[in-house]
């Protein structure tokens, strides 16, 4: 990997960088849409490329079930299998084991789960996770970590410490595989919401800096308080080295992206923009629009006149989307395209957001930006964006 920071914001910690990987070049910061099962829901690879996306995420757990490692190997890797010409990142598969399987047990050896096909006990070890990711062939691969999102109490420390031990096993396995020049291994900083544990984890993982290509911040986006969230991100981003990309896992809400970039994050992924599109929600700079609601049925405006996405550029009206959403899959596709573009832009021209949640104001003050200075914008207390649940709202 070639990672070159190009510019740094004179006020915040936001930075622009260029990352050259085996398949293509990606400009950071970037938002990675999620192609769980080898396709961004409903879109073609060509369509995703036309949106200017240069880095997508595939899920290791799903791909190892279907089509399976054998077929991916025969196809020559996931890039060839799905016709994707740019960069790809795969997760370790660990998170899905915890979130999707009811029977997963974590042992020191690995994650023990019952196979969804035959119910047989199956073990995902750090070595196995890396091997599967080698078969998939993504440009960036993730260590298997002991996922902390759902943990409390002493398990948080145990998970953090185990994640370090597993990182060592992943590094070992990756370096001995001969794939090191094509695939880049990222470490995942754990430690829950406890700053002391995070510090400990950061110290241990920084010791291994020469053997990892980048760092991810895991264990967040699990419903924690926003004021806790941004402080952990800041703590990690501040301590992580300048010459490694920083990846905030599972982050996708507009304000979260804005804050993360200002705090020095380079990459983020989330299913939120694409999933919410399938439920009829279009993201905009002034908040989400629920286009299923009848109040949009006679609105002939495009979602966002200034948006460069094909849906808005064609002038596709809110009324037309209201007519087809939930009935026709193509409506979900039209909104997915839009939401991917908008999410990419949240990372770049974030100052256009019109309503600021209070926590954002606090977070950005920590890096020297006063959102309220010289600006007359409303501040809303609490979590942020106002959602349209019904026509009455």
């Amino acid at each position, binding site marked *: 990997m070639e990672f070159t920071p190009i510019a740094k914001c004179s006020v915040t910690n936001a930075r622009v960088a*260029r990352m050259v990987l085996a398949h293509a070049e990606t400009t950071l910061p970037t938002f990675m849409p999620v192609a769980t099962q080898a396709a961004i829901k409903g879109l073609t690879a060509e*369509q995703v490329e036309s*949106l200017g996306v240069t880095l997508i995420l595939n899920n290791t757990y799903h791909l190892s079930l279907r089509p399976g490692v054998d077929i991916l190997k025969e196809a020559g890797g996931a890039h060839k*299998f*799905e016709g994707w010409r740019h960069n790809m990142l795969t997760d370790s598969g660990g998170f899905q084991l915890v979130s999707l399987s009811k029977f997963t047990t974590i042992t020191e050896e690995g994650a023990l789960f019952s196979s969804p096909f035959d119910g047989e006990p199956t073990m995902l070890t750090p070595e196995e996770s890396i091997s599967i990711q080698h078969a998939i062939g993504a440009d960036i691969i993730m260590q298997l970590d002991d996922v902390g999102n759902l943990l409390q109490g002493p398990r948080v420390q145990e998970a953090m410490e185990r994640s370090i031990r597993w990182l060592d096993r992943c590094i070992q396995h990756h370096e001995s595989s001969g794939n090191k020049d094509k695939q880049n291994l990222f470490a995942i900083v754990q430690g829950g919401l406890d700053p002391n544990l995070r510090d400990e984890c950061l110290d241990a993982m920084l010791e291994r800096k020469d053997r990892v290509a980048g760092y991810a911040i895991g264990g967040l986006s699990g419903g924690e308080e926003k004021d806790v969230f941004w402080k952990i991100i800041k703590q990690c981003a501040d301590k992580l080295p300048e010459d490694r990309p920083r990846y905030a896992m599972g982050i996708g809400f507009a304000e979260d992206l804005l804050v993360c970039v200002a705090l020095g994050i380079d990459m983020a992924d989330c299913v939120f923009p694409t999933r919410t599109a399938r439920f009829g929600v279009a993201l905009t700079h002034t908040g989400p629009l629920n286009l299923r609601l009848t109040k949009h049925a006679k609105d002939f405006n495009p979602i966002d006149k200034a948006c*460069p996405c094909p849906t808005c550029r064609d002038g596709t009206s809110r009324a037309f989307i209201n007519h087809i959403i939930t009935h*026709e899959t*193509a409506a979900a596709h*039209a909104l997915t395209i839009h939401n991917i573009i908008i999410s990419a832009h949240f990372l770049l021209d974030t100052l256009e957001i019109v309503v600021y949640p209070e926590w954002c104001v606090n977070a950005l003050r920590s890096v020297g930006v006063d959102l309220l200075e010289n600006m007359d914008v409303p501040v809303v207390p609490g979590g942020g964006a106002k959602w349209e649940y019904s026509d009455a709202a």
Partner: protein
Amino acid sequence: MFSLTSTIDSSSIFSPRTAELLLRTGKPKISTPGILTCTSRGIVPHLSNDNVKRTRAIRWVHVSFESFLEHSPPIPTLLQPQHGDKPRLNSFLGLDENDYLLSMSLRDPSDGREMPANTNTYVTANCIRGVRRVTPHDWQEYVRSLKPDIAFSLSDIPFTPPSYSQKRITKSIERSALWLQGLLGALSASSPMLFVQMAGGASIPARKAFSDSLLEVVHGKDADAIHPMKSLDEGVAGYVFDLVPLRLALAPDESICTLLQASLRPLPRTKPRLVTSACGPHEMLRLIRDVGVDLFDTQWAQRAADVGVALDFGFPVAIAGGQQQLHDLGYNLYDDKYRRDFTSLGIGCTCPSCSPYSIPADEIIRHSSIDAPSTTLAGAHQPYTKAYLHHLLHTHEMSAHTLLVMHNMTVMERFFEGVRDVIGGAGGSKDDFVMHVSKFIETYAEDDSESNSNPEGNVLAAARKAWREVELLRGKGRLSREAEKTNQANEMLVKEMDEKGAEGGVLD
């Protein structure tokens, strides 16, 4: 205008022919025999508009208006014209008037479900909130407001259970003629071209009578209404045959071709003949050969994409003859035999699935000034494979159908290109077409599963079955079905435990 360019047998009005339909300069020119694309709720199923544009086979898009009836007045009619007199329907659907030809009918021609009876004053149509009554006057207003390039007149085609009495059929042809006259009177010269849905059901005399009524010179007050036209037919630009209601009304030993011929025999041969819901290339070829049909909608090919079939056939047949077994019209990509098939859907196919990345790099959206253009990319122009489509179908990924629709539409367009070449006599005798049709029918297995004579016997039927299985396993309502299963299992367990307990306290 519709101009005939070649006719195989000029002594027959049912001869196969080629022609060009050009509404005005700047509109896409449609070569016939050719295709129009079906929509659902105004959209080509599975294709967002950017993918419609990528699919060059899509030039003529047909809209069934009835889905818009859920609001009153229908939403598209409320659209304020923004740039001059831009047609509302184009604006609403986001399809540029210079790139696409739009036609509009009230009913979805592929919908053969039973409906409440039509009357002298209205027809019944379907929308998501139930049945709506549409008067001839309503239809005039919708057509006037939306300005499709081509409007289908309102015809009284019964969707009540057959068979139909003599009296009902007579009513049908009288109303259809009357409503056509009303529409002609209401529209000005610059308004949409009118295609008429040919009435008369499965009765040969009734079909002939309807055609005759189009040609009759109109007198008296009615003549003033359509002045300066002398007969209804003068205002008609094309003839439409909906096969779904015909199949419902048809007796087993009757042929659709005979019915179409009965309608067309008295009429001028210079107008386009359009057939909806033809069941695949076999039926289309027979209708071209025996009736001289010019246009078909691609409902069948689009439905094949819905159920995971990638079409693969061509005209004239390029496969060597003399083989025992008939070839399939395509691939049922649900089939496990495609798990490791890394070949494309069709050799030499130019569709966005087989020849992707035709878009120039400068049309890719850039998110910042330093985004690098993608110049040195590996794997350029690699087609999507059958194995990938197989994977997408079994994981219930919508992208599968997107890729299949673009492919199938392209296969249909290329098929018709071949038909036009043979009829046009590009290097061959005039009997060539009939010979090539026979060869096609002898080479490919016909999709006759819709007609129930062979419900299991071909690749499309197998695909429909596999589609249903995956839909049940992974599709809409999966969670509630799974919850029900879990509940049943729990109940069984509780019952079992109760019984065991009653037998002697095993559980204690």
